[in-house]
């Protein structure tokens, strides 16, 4: 009987040949996938290079536009960018305590932001505030908060059909649904969370379908989604929970069926990926062929996305609450060797060893979520327990299909801070830790020179119920100064 080597991470890989082969295939696949994509994209003049964390989709689209924008539009854009830079992007922030999340907190610290980026951080006696810079002062200064998992912007405030874009119920698996096509930056709830200090959210399709769609990383400030996006496709959202179960004769109707469907889809994606690589190889070898010969098989948006998952490029964000479902997610990740991020994970405290061995990060459910159904055994102490075991932990506002339509990651994290996490650990679970998890730590998550000027200001311990967020700065621009 063959043993799956990944079931025995501690054993000296008895099936090492197979394991090596798997690794090689994966590496090659990853490389090839990238090549295929590059070629396809070239043909389509659309570059979807999410790794670059650019918003190439949008620029590409406008490049495709046959009718160039009128000259005055360009002029308006230039004038706007100049004024906004001059007016807003330079600022200095002083704090009695500045939590940089890159080293120790600084007493009486200063952060200087120039042209939207942090240009200096340090104690007030060592950092010179350039002449003419407006200065904001607060008791406590932190990096702008990052909500590691939300649906804000897709789940509108009114909870009416027309403002709910987080779930498409027509079929169970739709990895091709992009968050950028659904995110409404002007929804009042985006402002709601922003005013409490949340400057970046990982948002997108919600738990509720087996594969409900893509997620994105976006700032909470900007006039368009294009202006605010950091990562257009961050993860692919999957649900291994009863909310993805369908009734009657619809699939999936059981846990086992969910797993069977996911396996089937991932195997199909692997096959698709292999065929496209082969087609690419044929095209390369046959130099006489036209460069625009369509690849075989035809491009399939769903498969494209899952191929990126299999290539290790996009993580699967699997929402699983019960231990049994978490174990299923871990098993699937072993079988297909994709990057897994666990979401919710209410009973993860029962599987600490397994999660740790799999090196899987966890975005713990909102701690004030309702402890019913699959969350019935949820615990305020889960973040502390996971963190104590060395598992990367982030907090989140999560998905709510009723009231409150969004939670606030600051409030949820406060409960973690009061139940076992230290202040620094709790703060990092909504700043630098999610920045790393989402691979945007070169831009946000800590107060360091060169990073975006995103800051949150408080008049006391940010976690205290009676403290206020007294200022929010995004890209050096003060986006709220009303105490909240």
């Amino acid at each position, binding site marked *: 009987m063959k043993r799956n080597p990944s079931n025995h991470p501690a054993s000296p890989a008895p099936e090492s040949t197979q394991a090596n082969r798997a690794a090689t295939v994966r590496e090659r696949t990853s490389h090839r996938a990238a090549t295929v994509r590059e070629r396809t994209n070239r043909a389509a003049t659309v570059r979807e290079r999410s790794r670059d964390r650019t918003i190439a989709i949008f620029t590409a689209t406008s490049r495709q536009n046959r009718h160039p924008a009128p000259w005055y539009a360009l002029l308006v854009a230039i004038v706007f960018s100049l004024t906004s830079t001059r007016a807003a992007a330079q600022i200095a922030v002083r704090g009695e305590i500045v939590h940089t999340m890159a080293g120790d907190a600084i007493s009486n610290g200063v952060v200087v932001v120039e042209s939207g980026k942090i240009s200096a951080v340090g104690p007030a006696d060592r950092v010179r505030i350039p002449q003419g810079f407006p200065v904001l002062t607060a008791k406590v200064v932190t990096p702008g908060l990052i909500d590691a998992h939300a649906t804000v912007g897709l789940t509108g*405030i009114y909870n009416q059909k027309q403002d709910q874009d987080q779930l498409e119920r027509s079929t169970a698996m739709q990895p091709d649904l992009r968050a950028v096509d659904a995110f409404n930056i002007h929804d*009042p709830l985006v402002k709601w969370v922003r005013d409490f200090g949340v400057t970046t959210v990982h948002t997108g399709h919600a738990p509720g379908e087996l594969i409900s769609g893509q997620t994105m990383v976006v700032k909470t400030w900007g006039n368009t989604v294009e202006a605010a996006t950091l990562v257009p496709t961050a993860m692919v959202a999957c649900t291994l929970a009863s909310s993805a179960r369908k009734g009657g004769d619809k699939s999936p109707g059981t846990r086992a069926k969910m797993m069977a469907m996911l396996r089937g889809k991932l195997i199909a994606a692997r096959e698709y990926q292999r065929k496209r690589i082969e087609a690419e190889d044929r095209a390369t070898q046959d130099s006489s062929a036209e460069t625009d010969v369509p690849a075989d098989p035809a491009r399939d948006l769903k498969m494209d996305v899952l191929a990126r998952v299999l290539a290790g490029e996009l993580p699967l964000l699997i929402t699983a609450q019960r231990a049994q479902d978490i174990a299923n997610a871990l098993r699937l990740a072993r079988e297909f060797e994709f990057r897994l991020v666990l979401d919710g994970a209410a009973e993860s*405290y029962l599987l600490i060893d397994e999660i740790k061995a799999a090196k899987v990060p966890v975005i713990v459910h909102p701690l004030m979520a*309702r402890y019913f*159904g699959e969350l019935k055994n949820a615990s305020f102490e889960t973040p502390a327990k996971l963190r104590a075991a060395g598992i990367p932990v982030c907090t989140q506002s999560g*998905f709510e299909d*009723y009231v*409150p339509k969004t939670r606030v990651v600051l409030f949820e994290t406060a409960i973690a801070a009061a139940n076992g996490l230290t202040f620094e650990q709790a703060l990092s679970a909504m700043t630098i830790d999610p920045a790393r998890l989402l691979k945007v730590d070169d831009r946000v998550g800590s107060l360091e020179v060169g990073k975006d000027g995103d800051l949150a200001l408080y008049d006391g311990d940010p976690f205290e*119920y009676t403290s206020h967020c007294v200022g929010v700065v995004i890209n050096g621009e003060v986006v709220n100064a009303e105490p909240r």
Partner: protein
Amino acid sequence: LFFPERRIDPVQSRARKEADQPSRDCKGADKTKTRAPKQPGQPSRDCKGAEPKQSRVRKPGALTPVPHHSGAHLPRVEITSVRAPRESLRFLTGAALFALALGPAPFGRAEPIAFENARLIPVDAPEIESGVLLIEDGKIVAVGPAADVGIPPGARRIDASGKTIMPGLVCTHSHLGGIGGADGSAPIQPDVRVSDSINIRAPGFRRAVAGGLTTLNLMPGSGHLLSGQTIYVKLRDAGTIEEAAIRNPDGSIAGGLKMANGTNSMRAAPFPGTRGKSAALVREQFIKAREYQAKCERFADDPEKRPARDLGLECLAEALSGKRVIHHHTHRHDDIMTVLRLQREFGFRVVLHHVSEGWRVAEEIAAAGAPCSVILVDSPGGKLEAANLIFETGGVLERAGVLTAYHTDDWITDSRVFLRMAALGVRAGMSREGALASVTLAGAKMLDLEERIGSLTPGKDADFAILSGDPFSVYTKIEQTWVEGNQVFDRADPNDRLYAVGGYGAGEEAKPYLCCAEHAEGGQ
């Protein structure tokens, strides 16, 4: 000497309770010979039923009151004494013998207990930096600085240095216990009693005591114009709903009546489709009840002409007479005004619940003398009528002079963090004093229980919570909760701690049946 062991054999503890049933709380019964309907929150009308045969003075312009005596005609929960099950009796005997052997302190509750060196928040009096709370026989005996409180020689003394003691929290609006009131057959169902639907052993109640709650108004949902009768309970170590129930002086189970307007109760026929229709249906019912009530009174002695007994109309008549407070779900400012309009027309006593847009009509609410029980959720929206919910509402109402409380609406928010809601009220401008009262005494007033609970006041029930620090700090833990002199929660006990923080085994399957919130059913 007696040591209050936690979670003693429930049967035994029950036996102890039964052996020690406090006399019905009827102080001042004679002062209620005649009483006009009043808004909750006004001076107590406690024990109004102690003299059941009295007639009531009508409020000017109000309606014919219902005579409370005509037993056959009035809904009365028949249980006036809790019958001890056989095994309880056995334990009762055992406990009595044990107590006799011990000598002068027959039962734990009878022994005076002094909590010393605690910071005391009486709510109805200024905070005491370091003082003594003395309880005996399930009641508060004394509250004050050590110099002012004489501790009896036989008292158990508990050093509560560094702790804060405040009254047990009162939640005026809770759906714990897997409640289910009216069903989908009709929009107005006053004959339905939520007390018939409660699983008092549900884990939610353990979480509630972990949050420092001691008194709840358990209500059916808001998917109806009128979804049934509510029940006021104490979070005693109860095995049946009867044991948890708070009794009116006449022995009946205390409770109000749940009504709603706005979008939750607007559905396909026979439910109303518009706000105008909603109000029309309610008006129609109350007029019917008024006529029923009048006939009952007129033909009280004429069984031939007396109308056939109608439990629903009986209940509405109780609301019209002021005996039963209407707890009215209402969010939008225009819906709030509709409730006040109907209140003026029919003279019922009403507590406005949720009141998300109360900030828009605070003056009008204050003028009507209507108390408000506010919910504060972490963001506005989730449904249209809550789109303008703001954290400032509690403070705005308080400043307008409205009696203001908060409620958990559990399962909408978690009872364990009930204090957080008042703290967020403070964050948004409510006074600290007002916020402390909003989760204690204000709620007690809305349930007509302010003479029994809601503050640390001598003579009131010994319902209190012992906290590790300031009530409004996120870092503060509720360490113990006591109901009527019995400890019902102890964070140091792993069994209790499980419910305080959650974890495997603390689980609960039963969601409330709200009959409207289809969104709420989705859940993740």
